[in-house]
């Protein structure tokens, strides 16, 4: 499971071991790793299922998606996202959502291409270090087949604060 390879990419968050273990313990099926024929780690996706079914908020969440620099532009991220959506479908989720830095235009565009739209903006979601201002996040969503009317992705008119999201 956990590969001991080194993730030294400056844009990718490297989480603490407890963080990974927590996900592996709770949602092992949501942890998918892609390996190249030479044995190199190409990328991974990590997510979870959460929310209330009664309020039609049961959904899949993308916690981390990372593709190694040399395996970019191959459509790997799309493939991994597709797998996560498939798992969420099976779990009967209404939608899949994810948070992305407003500044990360490349990622925002990629998610749009994959069918995601901005549901709301979360103000100062990413806390910054070294004195720079905190950054806003887009909460992007894509409706799954269970949400036939696509109610879950109707954009909210106003941005929200991090403490207001569940």
């Amino acid at each position, binding site marked *: 499971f956990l590969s001991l390879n080194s993730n030294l990419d400056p844009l990718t968050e490297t989480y*603490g071991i407890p963080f990974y273990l927590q996900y*592996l313990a709770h949602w*092992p*099926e949501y942890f998918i790793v892609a390996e190249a024929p030479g044995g190199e780690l190409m990328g991974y996706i990590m997510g979870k299922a959460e929310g209330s079914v009664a309020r039609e908020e049961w959904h899949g969440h993308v916690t981390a998606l990372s593709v190694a620099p040399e395996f970019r532009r*191959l459509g790997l991220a799309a493939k991994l996202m597709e797998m996560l959506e498939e798992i969420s479908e099976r779990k009967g989720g209404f939608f899949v959502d994810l948070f992305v830095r407003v500044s990360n235009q490349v990622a925002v565009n990629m998610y749009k291409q994959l069918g995601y739209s901005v549901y709301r903006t979360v103000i100062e979601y990413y806390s910054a270090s070294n004195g720079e201002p905190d950054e806003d996040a887009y909460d992007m969503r894509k409706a799954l087949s269970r949400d036939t009317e696509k109610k879950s992705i109707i954009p909210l008119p106003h941005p929200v604060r991090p403490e207001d999201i569940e």
Partner: protein
Amino acid sequence: MAARGHVQDPNDRRLRPIYDYLDNGNNKMAIQQADKLLKKHKDLHCAKVLKAIGMQRTGKQDEAFNLAQEVATLEPTDDNSLQALTILYREMHRPELVTKLYEAAVRKVPLSEEYHSHLFMAYARVGDYKKMQQAGMALYKIVPKNPYYFWSVMSLVMQAISAQDEKLAQTMFLPLAERMVEKMVKEEKIEAEAEVQLYFMILERLGKCVEALNMVRGPLGEKLTSELQSRENKCMMMYQRLQLWPECNALSYKLLLKNPDDWQFYLSYFDSLFHLMDMSWSPSEEGQHCVEGHVTTTVAEAVKFVVDRMAEEDKKDSRPLRGPYMACLELIHRLRQRGCPDDKELGDPLELMVQFFGKFGDKPCCITDLKIYLHLLPPEQHTQFRNRLEELVPLGEAGEDGFRFPGDTKALQRHLCVCQLSRALGLQHALDTEGKLSLIAQLKAHYHHGLRFRKSCLKTELQFSDMYCLMAAHVYIDLWTENGDENMLWQCLGLLEEGLSFSPSNAQFKLLLLLLFCRLGAFQPVVDLYSSLDAKHVQHDTIGYLLTRYAGSLGQFAAASQSCNFSLRFFHSNQKDTSEYIIQAYKYGAFEKIPEFIAFRTRLNQSLHFAQVRTERMLLDLYTEADITLSLEESVKAMGVCAEEEDIPWDNMRDNRDLTVLVSWDPKDRELTEEHRRLSLEEESVWLKVRSLTLRLLASLALLGHAPSPRNSDKTNENGVTTKSSTLQNLLSQLDQTLQTAARITEKQTKKVRGQRTCLSFVVFWFSSPDDSSELQSQICNTFKSIVVQLQEMLSRCKGEVLEMKDRRLKTQPSLLETLVFFLETVCVVLWVASYSANVLRPLKSSLQKKKKKKKDTCTAMPVVLCGFQEWTSGLQGVVTQALDHVKAQEAQLTTLKLAALTLEEGDQQTQEECGFTRVAMDKVQSSYLGSLQELGDLLRKRADSLKSLKI
């Protein structure tokens, strides 16, 4: 903090402020508040525990423990106290006490689901699988919920996994677990997917593959829905274990049709095909192949399958997948391995690879993909291959300098890929010095040209052309190692510094710089580089070795200690963190992950690097602190080093080093092999053994100092001393053995250690004979002398210039620094031995003096040994003074060395700007050497002072 929510309880209301203080880190106020509360409500036990938590967090461990025990002995059954004690014990690293706590609670409240479940988790934290099994069953009896039952089953599986005796696992634990699950199956009580997974795990471990297969294919298998392709993957695994090649083949075929990019199934497809051919398998009469469908039995069919997959990709409008094209090369490789001529059917590898390059050459992974199959090309085709690829790279018109550059990033990536491939083919290595120099010029030109493609100026973004820069650095290193031309190294460092200035986040630049600075013995810049890599968590284990290996031996003691701490902090938190998630895995039924988590924890605990930093850190502390701030004995005690006990798992040592973290495009014959890794591990282990034995010898020396002098002691004390001396003897003989092993690997390092060994072995003399025979005395005196001689020799090996200018070029001798550090370490050891000797001799002298006074017997001459000792200390004084002078002289020499005076020849490949970067690197090395010398000098002075005070 836990246990809130029952707001109704008045006690909760009373305790709330204390919780809040603790949560906010205001421990003092928490303690005060608890005291206040306890005055009014003496029996509010939880307040006591919370107070104890406050004390624990303010460093009053002992008081905290005593207070907690007061409550614990009352065997509390209120939630608040139990939870608070659990938190406290966890912070004290005493998880075993939590089990006691809940054992008592369960005894008093035998029907509490909650306490039983806490008890189970408490056992899980300490890994007591047997007790877990019982606790799980007890829970199930109170509350018949499936998860509890299966906790118990899983605990049986864990007993099997951890059993020393595999037979016990196979005949007792696993069959019992199987029967427990079967019972539930029969009663149709299986509910969750996790339970089916656990059943599969048990059958698999029992080797009951047929049963496992039937289960997965049957109704129970329908529950396996969370994971993608979970049933298929499990079936495949069983087919392979059962060698059911028809099924394996047919399933791979099916899955590849579904996803022609899933590499693992090409491998199983080819594997199974060849197995089938070897056993001349053919479908039954009825034409039925197998349950999984169509089976491929001939090479021709497989060739067609792969060719069809490629044709499908060719037809697609969207982005083609790499899988089918790589599968084609893989099949050629396999067919050639078997000596099967049919590989021709698939085409010429050269053409196929050129095609692949045409399709994927602009992707950064092209090199990684093709590299695996370069061996399919005969050497005489190598140049042709490169030329063919070059034709496919769109480059602009040649400029003044004769270079043709790419017009966009896709063309750049293609051109870069050709460079990478020609390096991987060995074409770059085959060039002569001149060829390599012009290659460097070309790579640098491409690097500088490519800088224009960067769109944003984000610091985190890398330059598209960074890899050219890295490759040029590699060629510089080739030249340096081939010709020993240190100038190449300086230029290389300059180039990397330049690269870093344009791409401040490029980890590869940093890693290579880090490695080169270490090789140069300059540890100062390394610390900054490593911290800017922002290595986290597990990376301290996988790449931390890059620097901790050099940390101590280069004389940067403070920095070394800091680096070791980084790594140690990670290792220590691992143990605690993992346990919590093992418990979570039980809660969520992620049974498959539990053995994995445990294996992961073990892997880190048995890490070679962990053992190394642990040992080096302690040695470092002793060398820099012991007998300066604390006595040797106190230092050893504070560290908890035990001379008798081995704390390194020699037999199960895990090598977690990521040796491929640095990018390399070297041809296969220069690549790192398993043999290299093995040799390196052997070398590291032997050295670690030497160091850890040295540490334990020092520990036993320290504890000897504690014992009463053996000569004048009562007979009753003899025993204690004898055991200690035998420990010492034992460790010494182990050290001798290790040194013999080491000598086979590397003679040079071993020589240095011998000096230290002599000093330590010397201590044994004091025990070898109870009487003070003159023979022994002269023996001791001889050793005194020989130690001085050895130190003198060691010092003479330190002589020379660490850094000097010769013929306007900069020359380094980093090994001198290392030798000097080792000399200093040895001085420390000698001084500790001397101090011990003084302790032994002091009573001897005073008793002699008493005798003299009483009897006025002038005949009793001063024993030889006492004079010897005095001569010895003054001899030592002499050597240390010389060493100090040497260090001072080196410092002075370095300070006066004006690098600015160094005219870097600009014509010689480097522009003025590049010279600037090279000078930056040189300055860093110079200042690092200076720093090392200063730290060495300081420590040496401190040791010299303690030598002066050494009198008998």
